[in-house]
Protein backbone atom coordinates (compact mmCIF):
# COMPACT_ATOMS: atom_id res chain seq x y z
CA UNK A 1 0.00 0.00 0.00
CA UNK A 2 2.77 2.34 1.04
CA UNK A 3 4.74 1.49 -2.09
CA UNK A 4 1.72 2.25 -4.31
CA UNK A 5 1.24 5.64 -2.70
CA UNK A 6 4.95 6.45 -3.05
CA UNK A 7 4.75 5.49 -6.72
CA UNK A 8 1.77 7.80 -7.26
CA UNK A 9 3.56 10.78 -5.71
CA UNK A 10 6.76 10.16 -7.62
CA UNK A 11 4.78 10.10 -10.88
CA UNK A 12 2.79 13.16 -9.79
CA UNK A 13 5.89 15.24 -9.06
CA UNK A 14 7.65 13.96 -12.15
CA UNK A 15 4.70 14.91 -14.34
CA UNK A 16 4.36 18.31 -12.63
CA UNK A 17 8.04 19.06 -13.26
CA UNK A 18 7.63 18.04 -16.89
CA UNK A 19 4.68 20.42 -17.29
CA UNK A 20 6.59 23.20 -15.52
CA UNK A 21 9.42 22.96 -18.04
CA UNK A 22 7.50 22.14 -21.21
CA UNK A 23 4.41 24.39 -20.94
CA UNK A 24 6.29 27.71 -21.27
CA UNK A 25 8.29 26.19 -24.11
CA UNK A 26 5.12 25.04 -25.81
CA UNK A 27 3.56 28.49 -25.25
CA UNK A 28 6.59 30.19 -26.85
CA UNK A 29 6.61 27.74 -29.77
CA UNK A 30 2.89 28.20 -30.34
CA UNK A 31 3.22 32.00 -30.19
CA UNK A 32 6.18 31.99 -32.59
CA UNK A 33 4.06 30.14 -35.15
CA UNK A 34 1.14 32.62 -35.11
CA UNK A 35 2.67 35.62 -36.85
CA UNK A 36 0.23 35.22 -39.74
CA UNK A 37 -3.20 35.94 -38.38
CA UNK A 38 -5.44 32.88 -38.19
CA UNK A 39 -2.94 30.28 -39.38
CA UNK A 40 0.15 28.36 -38.25
CA UNK A 41 3.26 29.39 -40.14
CA UNK A 42 7.05 29.68 -39.93
CA UNK A 43 6.92 33.33 -40.90
CA UNK A 44 8.61 34.61 -37.73
CA UNK A 45 11.51 32.21 -38.38
CA UNK A 46 11.74 33.34 -41.99
CA UNK A 47 11.87 36.97 -40.88
CA UNK A 48 14.59 36.27 -38.33
CA UNK A 49 16.70 34.16 -40.69
CA UNK A 50 16.41 36.66 -43.51
CA UNK A 51 17.49 39.56 -41.30
CA UNK A 52 21.16 40.25 -42.18
CA UNK A 53 21.71 41.66 -38.69
CA UNK A 54 20.73 38.30 -37.17
CA UNK A 55 23.13 36.41 -39.39
CA UNK A 56 25.89 38.89 -38.69
CA UNK A 57 25.41 38.75 -34.92
CA UNK A 58 25.03 34.95 -35.00
CA UNK A 59 28.27 34.56 -36.96
CA UNK A 60 30.02 37.09 -34.72
CA UNK A 61 29.00 35.34 -31.51
CA UNK A 62 29.93 31.90 -32.90
CA UNK A 63 33.41 33.17 -33.79
CA UNK A 64 33.76 34.90 -30.40
CA UNK A 65 32.61 31.71 -28.66
CA UNK A 66 35.11 29.54 -30.53
CA UNK A 67 38.00 31.93 -29.84
CA UNK A 68 37.02 32.23 -26.17
CA UNK A 69 36.76 28.47 -25.71
CA UNK A 70 40.06 27.79 -27.49
CA UNK A 71 41.99 30.35 -25.44
CA UNK A 72 40.30 29.20 -22.22
CA UNK A 73 41.34 25.59 -22.84
CA UNK A 74 44.91 26.60 -23.66
CA UNK A 75 45.01 28.79 -20.58
CA UNK A 76 43.22 26.70 -17.96
CA UNK A 77 44.30 23.13 -18.74
CA UNK A 78 48.04 23.79 -18.24
CA UNK A 79 47.29 26.08 -15.26
CA UNK A 80 45.11 23.58 -13.42
CA UNK A 81 47.50 20.75 -14.35
CA UNK A 82 50.49 22.65 -13.01
CA UNK A 83 48.62 23.51 -9.83
CA UNK A 84 47.78 19.84 -9.23
CA UNK A 85 51.29 18.74 -9.97
CA UNK A 86 53.57 21.36 -8.47
CA UNK A 87 51.68 23.76 -6.22
CA UNK A 88 48.59 21.99 -4.83
CA UNK A 89 48.48 24.49 -1.95
CA UNK A 90 47.51 27.21 -4.47
CA UNK A 91 44.36 25.32 -5.49
CA UNK A 92 42.12 27.00 -2.87
CA UNK A 93 43.34 30.43 -4.06
CA UNK A 94 42.62 29.50 -7.66
CA UNK A 95 39.16 28.27 -6.65
CA UNK A 96 38.36 31.60 -5.01
CA UNK A 97 39.60 33.51 -8.07
CA UNK A 98 37.52 31.27 -10.33
CA UNK A 99 34.26 32.15 -8.59
CA UNK A 100 34.88 35.92 -8.62
CA UNK A 101 32.78 36.36 -11.79
CA UNK A 102 29.84 34.96 -9.76
CA UNK A 103 30.42 37.45 -6.96
CA UNK A 104 31.11 40.59 -9.01
CA UNK A 105 28.02 41.58 -11.04
CA UNK A 106 28.67 41.46 -14.79
CA UNK A 107 27.64 45.10 -15.18
CA UNK A 108 30.26 46.18 -12.62
CA UNK A 109 32.86 44.05 -14.34
CA UNK A 110 32.02 45.53 -17.76
CA UNK A 111 32.15 49.09 -16.39
CA UNK A 112 35.52 48.25 -14.91
CA UNK A 113 36.72 46.98 -18.28
CA UNK A 114 35.46 50.07 -20.09
CA UNK A 115 36.93 52.49 -17.56
CA UNK A 116 40.32 50.76 -17.61
CA UNK A 117 40.64 50.08 -21.32
CA UNK A 118 38.98 53.12 -22.88
CA UNK A 119 41.78 55.51 -21.97
CA UNK A 120 45.54 55.56 -22.41
CA UNK A 121 47.84 53.81 -21.78
CA UNK A 122 45.60 50.75 -22.23
CA UNK A 123 43.29 52.11 -24.90
CA UNK A 124 41.48 49.11 -26.39
CA UNK A 125 38.15 50.47 -27.57
CA UNK A 126 39.26 52.61 -30.50
CA UNK A 127 39.08 49.99 -33.25
CA UNK A 128 36.67 47.03 -33.68
CA UNK A 129 39.57 44.56 -33.62
CA UNK A 130 40.94 45.89 -30.32
CA UNK A 131 37.43 45.93 -28.86
CA UNK A 132 36.99 42.31 -29.95
CA UNK A 133 40.21 41.42 -28.14
CA UNK A 134 38.73 43.09 -25.06
CA UNK A 135 35.45 41.21 -25.61
CA UNK A 136 37.26 37.85 -25.76
CA UNK A 137 39.20 38.70 -22.59
CA UNK A 138 35.92 39.60 -20.90
CA UNK A 139 34.25 36.39 -22.08
CA UNK A 140 37.18 34.34 -20.77
CA UNK A 141 36.74 35.92 -17.33
CA UNK A 142 32.94 35.49 -17.37
CA UNK A 143 33.14 31.82 -18.39
CA UNK A 144 36.06 31.07 -16.07
CA UNK A 145 33.97 29.50 -13.28
CA UNK A 146 32.53 26.92 -15.68
CA UNK A 147 35.71 26.20 -17.57
CA UNK A 148 37.93 26.09 -14.50
CA UNK A 149 35.57 23.87 -12.52
CA UNK A 150 35.02 21.41 -15.35
CA UNK A 151 38.75 21.01 -15.88
CA UNK A 152 39.32 20.86 -12.12
CA UNK A 153 36.80 18.01 -11.78
CA UNK A 154 38.45 16.26 -14.72
CA UNK A 155 41.90 16.54 -13.15
CA UNK A 156 40.49 15.28 -9.85
CA UNK A 157 39.18 12.16 -11.57
CA UNK A 158 42.63 11.09 -12.82
CA UNK A 159 45.79 10.59 -10.82
CA UNK A 160 47.61 13.52 -12.44
CA UNK A 161 50.85 13.18 -10.49
CA UNK A 162 51.37 9.45 -10.92
CA UNK A 163 50.35 9.46 -14.59
CA UNK A 164 52.79 12.30 -15.24
CA UNK A 165 55.58 10.48 -13.43
CA UNK A 166 54.78 7.25 -15.27
CA UNK A 167 54.96 9.05 -18.62
CA UNK A 168 58.18 10.83 -17.65
CA UNK A 169 59.82 7.59 -16.55
CA UNK A 170 59.03 6.29 -20.05
CA UNK A 171 60.88 9.23 -21.58
CA UNK A 172 58.04 11.69 -22.28
CA UNK A 173 58.70 15.43 -22.06
CA UNK A 174 56.20 17.96 -20.63
CA UNK A 175 54.47 18.64 -23.93
CA UNK A 176 54.07 14.91 -24.66
CA UNK A 177 52.72 14.34 -21.15
CA UNK A 178 50.20 17.14 -21.55
CA UNK A 179 49.07 16.28 -25.09
CA UNK A 180 49.11 12.49 -24.94
CA UNK A 181 48.19 11.73 -21.33
CA UNK A 182 46.53 14.67 -19.59
CA UNK A 183 44.41 16.15 -22.43
CA UNK A 184 42.85 12.78 -23.37
CA UNK A 185 42.33 12.03 -19.68
CA UNK A 186 40.29 15.18 -19.11
CA UNK A 187 38.77 15.30 -22.60
CA UNK A 188 35.17 14.96 -21.45
CA UNK A 189 35.62 17.59 -18.75
CA UNK A 190 37.11 19.97 -21.32
CA UNK A 191 34.22 19.33 -23.73
CA UNK A 192 31.56 19.92 -21.09
CA UNK A 193 33.28 23.11 -19.87
CA UNK A 194 33.74 24.27 -23.46
CA UNK A 195 30.08 23.72 -24.32
CA UNK A 196 28.80 25.58 -21.29
CA UNK A 197 31.22 28.44 -21.97
CA UNK A 198 30.27 28.49 -25.64
CA UNK A 199 26.54 28.61 -24.83
CA UNK A 200 27.22 31.41 -22.34
CA UNK A 201 29.11 33.50 -24.91
CA UNK A 202 26.36 32.97 -27.50
CA UNK A 203 23.71 34.32 -25.11
CA UNK A 204 25.80 36.97 -23.33
CA UNK A 205 24.22 40.41 -23.48
CA UNK A 206 26.04 43.02 -21.40
CA UNK A 207 29.55 42.89 -22.90
CA UNK A 208 28.26 43.15 -26.48
CA UNK A 209 25.77 45.84 -25.60
CA UNK A 210 28.16 48.10 -23.68
CA UNK A 211 31.14 47.63 -25.97
CA UNK A 212 28.82 48.18 -28.96
CA UNK A 213 29.69 45.00 -30.82
CA UNK A 214 27.21 42.93 -32.90
CA UNK A 215 26.79 40.06 -30.42
CA UNK A 216 23.77 37.75 -30.61
CA UNK A 217 22.64 38.47 -27.04
CA UNK A 218 22.49 42.18 -27.72
CA UNK A 219 20.62 41.54 -30.99
CA UNK A 220 18.01 39.38 -29.21
CA UNK A 221 17.34 42.12 -26.67
CA UNK A 222 17.05 44.70 -29.43
CA UNK A 223 14.55 42.54 -31.34
CA UNK A 224 12.64 41.82 -28.12
CA UNK A 225 12.16 45.54 -27.50
CA UNK A 226 10.67 46.32 -30.91
CA UNK A 227 8.95 43.14 -32.14
CA UNK A 228 6.57 40.45 -30.82
CA UNK A 229 6.82 37.14 -32.72
CA UNK A 230 10.48 37.18 -33.75
CA UNK A 231 11.88 37.05 -30.17
CA UNK A 232 9.76 33.94 -29.57
CA UNK A 233 11.20 32.36 -32.74
CA UNK A 234 14.71 33.33 -31.59
CA UNK A 235 14.12 31.70 -28.20
CA UNK A 236 12.99 28.46 -29.83
CA UNK A 237 16.02 28.56 -32.12
CA UNK A 238 18.38 29.08 -29.20
CA UNK A 239 16.73 26.11 -27.43
CA UNK A 240 17.26 24.02 -30.53
CA UNK A 241 20.91 25.05 -30.73
CA UNK A 242 21.37 24.17 -27.04
CA UNK A 243 19.80 20.73 -27.57
CA UNK A 244 21.91 20.14 -30.65
CA UNK A 245 25.01 21.04 -28.67
CA UNK A 246 23.95 18.71 -25.83
CA UNK A 247 23.31 15.94 -28.34
CA UNK A 248 26.77 16.47 -29.77
CA UNK A 249 28.19 16.29 -26.26
CA UNK A 250 26.40 12.99 -25.58
CA UNK A 251 27.67 11.47 -28.82
CA UNK A 252 31.24 12.53 -28.09
CA UNK A 253 31.11 11.34 -24.47
CA UNK A 254 29.67 7.94 -25.45
CA UNK A 255 32.30 7.63 -28.12
CA UNK A 256 34.98 7.80 -25.44
CA UNK A 257 33.45 4.98 -23.43
CA UNK A 258 34.65 1.42 -23.63
CA UNK A 259 32.94 -1.76 -22.66
CA UNK A 260 33.87 -2.86 -19.16
CA UNK A 261 34.24 -6.58 -18.65
CA UNK A 262 35.25 -6.88 -15.04
CA UNK A 263 37.44 -4.99 -12.68
CA UNK A 264 38.80 -6.22 -9.38
CA UNK A 265 41.82 -6.41 -7.20
CA UNK A 266 42.66 -9.89 -8.45
Amino acid sequence: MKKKSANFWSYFWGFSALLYFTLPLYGTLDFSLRMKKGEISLMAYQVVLSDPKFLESFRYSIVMGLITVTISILLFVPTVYWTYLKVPKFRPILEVISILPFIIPTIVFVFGLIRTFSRPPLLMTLTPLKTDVLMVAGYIVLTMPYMFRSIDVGMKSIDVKTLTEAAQSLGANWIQVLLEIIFPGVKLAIISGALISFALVIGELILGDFLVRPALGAYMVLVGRSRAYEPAALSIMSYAITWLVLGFFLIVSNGGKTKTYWVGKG
Partner: protein
Amino acid sequence: MSTLNFSNINKYYGNTPAVVDFNLSIQEGEFVSFLGPSGCGKTTTLRMVAGFEQPTSGSLKINDAEILTLPANKRNVGMVFQSYALFPNMTVADNIGFGLKVAKKSKKEIDMKVDQTLNLIRMPELRDRYPSQLSGGQQQRVALARALAIEPKVLLLDEPLSALDAKIRVELRAEIRRIQQQLNITTIYVTHDQEEALSLSDRIVVMDNSHIEQVGTPAQIYNDPASKFVAEFIGHINLLPVTVTNSESGEVSIHGNTVKVKNARNFENRPTMLAVRPEELNPGTVVGANNLTGIVESVTYLGSIIRIRLDIGGEGVSIDLFNDRKFISPQIGQSYDFNFPVEASWLI
Protein backbone atom coordinates in the same frame (compact mmCIF):
# COMPACT_ATOMS: atom_id res chain seq x y z
CA MET B 1 72.56 -4.01 -17.43
CA SER B 2 73.85 -1.61 -14.86
CA THR B 3 75.41 -0.96 -11.53
CA LEU B 4 74.01 1.71 -9.26
CA ASN B 5 75.94 3.70 -6.67
CA PHE B 6 74.50 5.89 -3.93
CA SER B 7 77.13 8.07 -2.23
CA ASN B 8 76.29 10.15 0.83
CA ILE B 9 72.76 10.82 -0.34
CA ASN B 10 70.84 13.20 1.93
CA LYS B 11 67.36 14.54 1.46
CA TYR B 12 65.80 17.19 3.70
CA TYR B 13 62.39 18.84 3.44
CA GLY B 14 63.17 22.11 5.19
CA ASN B 15 64.76 20.93 8.41
CA THR B 16 63.02 17.57 8.34
CA PRO B 17 65.28 14.72 7.27
CA ALA B 18 63.81 12.22 4.80
CA VAL B 19 66.97 10.32 3.90
CA VAL B 20 70.24 10.69 5.80
CA ASP B 21 73.69 9.51 4.78
CA PHE B 22 72.53 6.85 2.34
CA ASN B 23 75.40 4.82 0.91
CA LEU B 24 74.82 1.74 -1.17
CA SER B 25 76.26 -0.05 -4.15
CA ILE B 26 73.98 -2.28 -6.22
CA GLN B 27 75.55 -4.77 -8.59
CA GLU B 28 74.52 -5.59 -12.12
CA GLY B 29 71.41 -7.79 -12.24
CA GLU B 30 70.95 -7.61 -8.48
CA PHE B 31 67.49 -7.51 -6.90
CA VAL B 32 67.60 -5.19 -3.89
CA SER B 33 64.62 -4.44 -1.66
CA PHE B 34 64.22 -1.32 0.44
CA LEU B 35 62.28 -2.47 3.48
CA GLY B 36 60.99 -0.40 6.36
CA PRO B 37 57.95 1.13 8.01
CA SER B 38 56.00 4.05 6.52
CA GLY B 39 57.98 7.29 6.53
CA CYS B 40 61.40 5.63 6.81
CA GLY B 41 62.62 7.18 3.54
CA LYS B 42 62.56 4.14 1.25
CA THR B 43 60.16 5.58 -1.35
CA THR B 44 61.93 8.95 -1.28
CA THR B 45 65.20 7.18 -2.08
CA LEU B 46 63.55 5.31 -4.96
CA ARG B 47 62.03 8.52 -6.29
CA MET B 48 65.47 10.14 -6.25
CA VAL B 49 66.70 7.39 -8.57
CA ALA B 50 63.69 7.96 -10.84
CA GLY B 51 64.32 11.72 -10.89
CA PHE B 52 61.09 12.74 -9.18
CA GLU B 53 62.93 14.01 -6.12
CA GLN B 54 66.24 15.81 -6.01
CA PRO B 55 68.58 14.97 -3.09
CA THR B 56 69.83 17.81 -0.93
CA SER B 57 73.36 16.46 -1.30
CA GLY B 58 75.20 13.39 -2.51
CA SER B 59 75.89 11.54 -5.70
CA LEU B 60 73.96 8.89 -7.60
CA LYS B 61 75.61 7.03 -10.43
CA ILE B 62 74.49 4.46 -12.95
CA ASN B 63 77.46 2.70 -14.54
CA ASP B 64 79.73 5.38 -13.05
CA ALA B 65 77.83 8.20 -14.78
CA GLU B 66 76.19 10.82 -12.56
CA ILE B 67 72.40 10.85 -13.12
CA LEU B 68 71.34 13.57 -10.68
CA THR B 69 71.87 16.22 -13.34
CA LEU B 70 69.47 14.46 -15.73
CA PRO B 71 65.70 15.09 -15.75
CA ALA B 72 63.41 12.11 -15.08
CA ASN B 73 62.65 11.51 -18.77
CA LYS B 74 66.33 11.23 -19.69
CA ARG B 75 67.40 8.68 -17.09
CA ASN B 76 66.15 5.52 -18.83
CA VAL B 77 64.88 4.12 -15.57
CA GLY B 78 61.70 2.02 -15.67
CA MET B 79 59.25 2.49 -12.84
CA VAL B 80 56.25 0.47 -11.67
CA PHE B 81 53.83 2.26 -9.35
CA GLN B 82 51.63 0.99 -6.57
CA SER B 83 48.53 2.36 -8.34
CA TYR B 84 49.58 0.82 -11.71
CA ALA B 85 49.41 4.27 -13.39
CA LEU B 86 48.34 2.83 -16.74
CA PHE B 87 47.17 5.45 -19.22
CA PRO B 88 43.38 4.99 -19.21
CA ASN B 89 42.90 6.32 -22.74
CA MET B 90 45.27 3.75 -24.27
CA THR B 91 45.01 0.03 -24.92
CA VAL B 92 47.40 -2.43 -23.35
CA ALA B 93 49.51 -2.42 -26.53
CA ASP B 94 49.56 1.40 -26.66
CA ASN B 95 50.53 1.57 -22.99
CA ILE B 96 53.42 -0.83 -23.51
CA GLY B 97 54.49 0.90 -26.70
CA PHE B 98 54.24 4.43 -25.28
CA GLY B 99 57.88 4.70 -24.22
CA LEU B 100 59.03 3.41 -27.60
CA LYS B 101 56.72 5.81 -29.44
CA VAL B 102 58.13 8.70 -27.42
CA ALA B 103 61.62 7.48 -28.33
CA LYS B 104 60.50 7.71 -32.01
CA LYS B 105 60.98 4.00 -32.78
CA SER B 106 59.42 2.68 -35.98
CA LYS B 107 55.93 1.17 -35.87
CA LYS B 108 57.31 -2.22 -36.83
CA GLU B 109 59.84 -2.08 -34.03
CA ILE B 110 57.18 -0.98 -31.52
CA ASP B 111 54.80 -3.79 -32.56
CA MET B 112 57.56 -6.36 -32.28
CA LYS B 113 58.63 -5.17 -28.84
CA VAL B 114 55.03 -4.99 -27.60
CA ASP B 115 54.40 -8.60 -28.69
CA GLN B 116 57.66 -9.72 -27.15
CA THR B 117 56.88 -8.00 -23.83
CA LEU B 118 53.29 -9.28 -23.79
CA ASN B 119 54.65 -12.80 -24.19
CA LEU B 120 57.08 -12.15 -21.37
CA ILE B 121 54.20 -11.35 -19.01
CA ARG B 122 52.13 -14.17 -20.56
CA MET B 123 49.26 -11.95 -21.63
CA PRO B 124 49.37 -11.81 -25.45
CA GLU B 125 45.57 -12.10 -25.71
CA LEU B 126 44.96 -8.83 -23.83
CA ARG B 127 46.71 -6.64 -26.41
CA ASP B 128 43.67 -4.57 -27.37
CA ARG B 129 41.98 -4.26 -23.98
CA TYR B 130 41.77 -0.98 -22.07
CA PRO B 131 43.07 -0.77 -18.47
CA SER B 132 39.49 -0.53 -17.16
CA GLN B 133 38.84 -3.97 -18.67
CA LEU B 134 41.65 -5.60 -16.69
CA SER B 135 41.87 -6.92 -13.14
CA GLY B 136 44.34 -5.35 -10.69
CA GLY B 137 46.83 -8.19 -11.18
CA GLN B 138 46.62 -7.90 -14.97
CA GLN B 139 47.03 -4.13 -14.79
CA GLN B 140 50.18 -4.47 -12.72
CA ARG B 141 51.58 -7.04 -15.17
CA VAL B 142 50.96 -4.55 -17.99
CA ALA B 143 52.61 -1.79 -15.94
CA LEU B 144 55.63 -4.06 -15.50
CA ALA B 145 55.70 -4.82 -19.22
CA ARG B 146 55.45 -1.11 -20.02
CA ALA B 147 58.42 -0.33 -17.78
CA LEU B 148 60.45 -3.19 -19.30
CA ALA B 149 59.63 -2.38 -22.94
CA ILE B 150 61.99 0.60 -22.97
CA GLU B 151 64.82 -1.70 -21.83
CA PRO B 152 65.68 0.46 -18.83
CA LYS B 153 69.06 0.46 -17.15
CA VAL B 154 67.39 0.00 -13.77
CA LEU B 155 63.92 -1.21 -12.87
CA LEU B 156 62.21 0.49 -9.91
CA LEU B 157 59.17 -1.02 -8.23
CA ASP B 158 57.32 1.08 -5.68
CA GLU B 159 55.19 -1.26 -3.54
CA PRO B 160 53.77 -2.80 -6.72
CA LEU B 161 51.78 -5.51 -4.97
CA SER B 162 50.24 -3.68 -2.03
CA ALA B 163 46.94 -2.94 -3.81
CA LEU B 164 46.39 -6.61 -4.71
CA ASP B 165 44.72 -9.55 -3.00
CA ALA B 166 46.96 -11.86 -0.95
CA LYS B 167 46.77 -14.78 -3.41
CA ILE B 168 47.51 -12.65 -6.48
CA ARG B 169 50.31 -10.97 -4.55
CA VAL B 170 52.12 -14.26 -4.03
CA GLU B 171 51.62 -15.26 -7.69
CA LEU B 172 52.77 -11.93 -9.04
CA ARG B 173 55.85 -11.68 -6.87
CA ALA B 174 57.04 -15.02 -8.24
CA GLU B 175 56.34 -13.62 -11.71
CA ILE B 176 58.36 -10.47 -10.99
CA ARG B 177 61.32 -12.51 -9.78
CA ARG B 178 61.13 -14.85 -12.81
CA ILE B 179 61.13 -11.92 -15.25
CA GLN B 180 63.89 -10.08 -13.36
CA GLN B 181 66.11 -13.15 -13.44
CA GLN B 182 65.27 -13.88 -17.08
CA LEU B 183 66.26 -10.34 -18.12
CA ASN B 184 69.00 -10.04 -15.48
CA ILE B 185 67.89 -6.47 -14.87
CA THR B 186 69.16 -4.43 -11.90
CA THR B 187 66.10 -3.91 -9.72
CA ILE B 188 65.12 -1.89 -6.67
CA TYR B 189 61.95 -2.98 -4.95
CA VAL B 190 60.33 -0.87 -2.25
CA THR B 191 58.08 -2.63 0.22
CA HIS B 192 56.98 -2.64 3.82
CA ASP B 193 56.10 -6.33 3.54
CA GLN B 194 58.97 -8.35 5.01
CA GLU B 195 57.74 -11.60 3.43
CA GLU B 196 57.95 -10.01 -0.03
CA ALA B 197 61.43 -8.66 0.66
CA LEU B 198 62.69 -11.96 2.09
CA SER B 199 61.29 -14.07 -0.73
CA LEU B 200 62.32 -11.85 -3.65
CA SER B 201 65.59 -10.18 -2.84
CA ASP B 202 69.25 -10.87 -3.36
CA ARG B 203 69.87 -8.23 -0.70
CA ILE B 204 67.64 -6.23 1.61
CA VAL B 205 68.21 -2.66 2.81
CA VAL B 206 66.32 -2.23 6.08
CA MET B 207 65.55 1.41 6.75
CA ASP B 208 64.16 3.25 9.73
CA ASN B 209 63.82 6.90 10.56
CA SER B 210 65.60 8.09 7.36
CA HIS B 211 68.64 5.87 7.97
CA ILE B 212 69.87 2.53 6.73
CA GLU B 213 69.70 0.12 9.65
CA GLN B 214 71.22 -2.90 7.92
CA VAL B 215 72.11 -4.19 4.47
CA GLY B 216 72.36 -7.92 3.91
CA THR B 217 71.01 -11.06 2.31
CA PRO B 218 67.59 -12.21 3.55
CA ALA B 219 69.32 -14.89 5.69
CA GLN B 220 71.73 -12.35 7.23
CA ILE B 221 68.93 -9.92 7.97
CA TYR B 222 66.77 -12.59 9.56
CA ASN B 223 69.38 -14.62 11.39
CA ASP B 224 71.79 -11.87 12.41
CA PRO B 225 69.88 -8.61 12.76
CA ALA B 226 72.23 -5.73 13.43
CA SER B 227 69.91 -3.82 15.75
CA LYS B 228 66.88 -4.19 17.98
CA PHE B 229 64.80 -2.45 15.30
CA VAL B 230 65.78 -4.95 12.59
CA ALA B 231 65.26 -7.89 14.95
CA GLU B 232 61.76 -6.70 15.82
CA PHE B 233 60.82 -5.55 12.33
CA ILE B 234 61.73 -8.78 10.56
CA GLY B 235 59.71 -11.78 11.75
CA HIS B 236 58.82 -12.45 15.37
CA ILE B 237 61.39 -12.19 18.11
CA ASN B 238 61.54 -12.83 21.82
CA LEU B 239 63.38 -10.09 23.70
CA LEU B 240 64.24 -10.78 27.34
CA PRO B 241 66.10 -8.40 29.67
CA VAL B 242 69.29 -10.11 30.92
CA THR B 243 72.43 -9.34 32.92
CA VAL B 244 75.81 -10.44 31.58
CA THR B 245 77.50 -12.51 34.29
CA ASN B 246 80.54 -13.74 32.34
CA SER B 247 81.32 -12.05 29.06
CA GLU B 248 84.23 -14.41 28.27
CA SER B 249 82.14 -17.56 28.40
CA GLY B 250 79.01 -15.76 27.15
CA GLU B 251 76.96 -16.43 30.28
CA VAL B 252 73.96 -14.24 31.07
CA SER B 253 71.36 -14.39 33.80
CA ILE B 254 67.57 -14.38 33.24
CA HIS B 255 65.59 -14.23 36.45
CA GLY B 256 68.20 -16.34 38.29
CA ASN B 257 68.68 -18.83 35.43
CA THR B 258 71.95 -18.88 33.55
CA VAL B 259 72.02 -19.28 29.77
CA LYS B 260 74.79 -18.93 27.20
CA VAL B 261 74.81 -16.64 24.17
CA LYS B 262 77.22 -16.22 21.24
CA ASN B 263 78.11 -12.54 21.67
CA ALA B 264 78.29 -11.44 25.32
CA ARG B 265 81.41 -9.31 24.86
CA ASN B 266 80.90 -5.55 24.96
CA PHE B 267 77.56 -5.94 26.73
CA GLU B 268 78.84 -5.78 30.32
CA ASN B 269 77.43 -3.15 32.68
CA ARG B 270 74.61 -1.91 30.44
CA PRO B 271 70.94 -2.78 29.85
CA THR B 272 70.95 -5.76 27.54
CA MET B 273 68.30 -7.89 25.85
CA LEU B 274 68.59 -11.50 24.83
CA ALA B 275 67.05 -12.10 21.41
CA VAL B 276 65.82 -15.46 20.20
CA ARG B 277 63.36 -16.35 17.43
CA PRO B 278 60.21 -18.26 18.52
CA GLU B 279 60.92 -21.10 16.07
CA GLU B 280 64.34 -21.68 17.70
CA LEU B 281 62.68 -22.64 20.98
CA ASN B 282 61.96 -26.35 21.44
CA PRO B 283 59.88 -28.14 24.06
CA GLY B 284 61.66 -30.17 26.77
CA THR B 285 65.18 -30.03 28.13
CA VAL B 286 68.36 -30.91 26.22
CA VAL B 287 71.82 -31.35 27.69
CA GLY B 288 74.24 -28.71 26.36
CA ALA B 289 71.48 -26.33 25.25
CA ASN B 290 69.98 -23.41 27.14
CA ASN B 291 67.12 -24.76 29.25
CA LEU B 292 64.40 -22.63 30.82
CA THR B 293 60.97 -23.08 32.32
CA GLY B 294 57.88 -20.90 31.98
CA ILE B 295 54.18 -20.93 32.79
CA VAL B 296 51.77 -21.44 29.86
CA GLU B 297 49.65 -18.34 29.27
CA SER B 298 48.01 -19.25 25.95
CA VAL B 299 48.12 -21.67 23.04
CA THR B 300 47.19 -20.21 19.64
CA TYR B 301 46.47 -22.20 16.51
CA LEU B 302 47.89 -20.39 13.43
CA GLY B 303 47.41 -23.07 10.78
CA SER B 304 50.84 -24.48 9.99
CA ILE B 305 52.17 -23.15 13.30
CA ILE B 306 51.07 -23.46 16.92
CA ARG B 307 52.21 -20.58 19.12
CA ILE B 308 52.64 -21.20 22.83
CA ARG B 309 52.91 -18.10 24.96
CA LEU B 310 54.83 -18.48 28.22
CA ASP B 311 55.51 -16.29 31.21
CA ILE B 312 59.05 -16.22 32.63
CA GLY B 313 59.21 -14.04 35.72
CA GLY B 314 56.82 -11.49 34.25
CA GLU B 315 58.37 -11.57 30.74
CA GLY B 316 56.48 -13.02 27.81
CA VAL B 317 58.09 -15.63 25.55
CA SER B 318 56.61 -17.16 22.37
CA ILE B 319 57.40 -20.64 21.12
CA ASP B 320 56.42 -21.55 17.54
CA LEU B 321 55.96 -25.26 16.85
CA PHE B 322 55.08 -26.86 13.54
CA ASN B 323 51.53 -28.11 13.52
CA ASP B 324 51.77 -31.82 14.15
CA ARG B 325 48.69 -34.07 14.40
CA LYS B 326 50.31 -35.80 17.39
CA PHE B 327 50.75 -32.51 19.21
CA ILE B 328 49.26 -32.50 22.70
CA SER B 329 48.38 -28.98 23.74
CA PRO B 330 49.72 -27.90 27.17
CA GLN B 331 47.21 -26.68 29.74
CA ILE B 332 47.01 -22.98 30.63
CA GLY B 333 48.90 -22.37 33.88
CA GLN B 334 51.02 -25.52 33.66
CA SER B 335 54.80 -25.42 33.92
CA TYR B 336 56.55 -25.83 30.54
CA ASP B 337 60.21 -26.67 29.93
CA PHE B 338 61.88 -25.45 26.77
CA ASN B 339 65.37 -25.14 25.33
CA PHE B 340 67.24 -23.31 22.61
CA PRO B 341 70.71 -23.69 21.08
CA VAL B 342 73.44 -21.29 22.14
CA GLU B 343 74.10 -20.21 18.53
CA ALA B 344 70.42 -19.27 18.05
CA SER B 345 70.45 -16.53 20.68
CA TRP B 346 72.31 -13.24 20.82
CA LEU B 347 72.43 -10.02 22.80
CA ILE B 348 71.28 -6.68 21.47
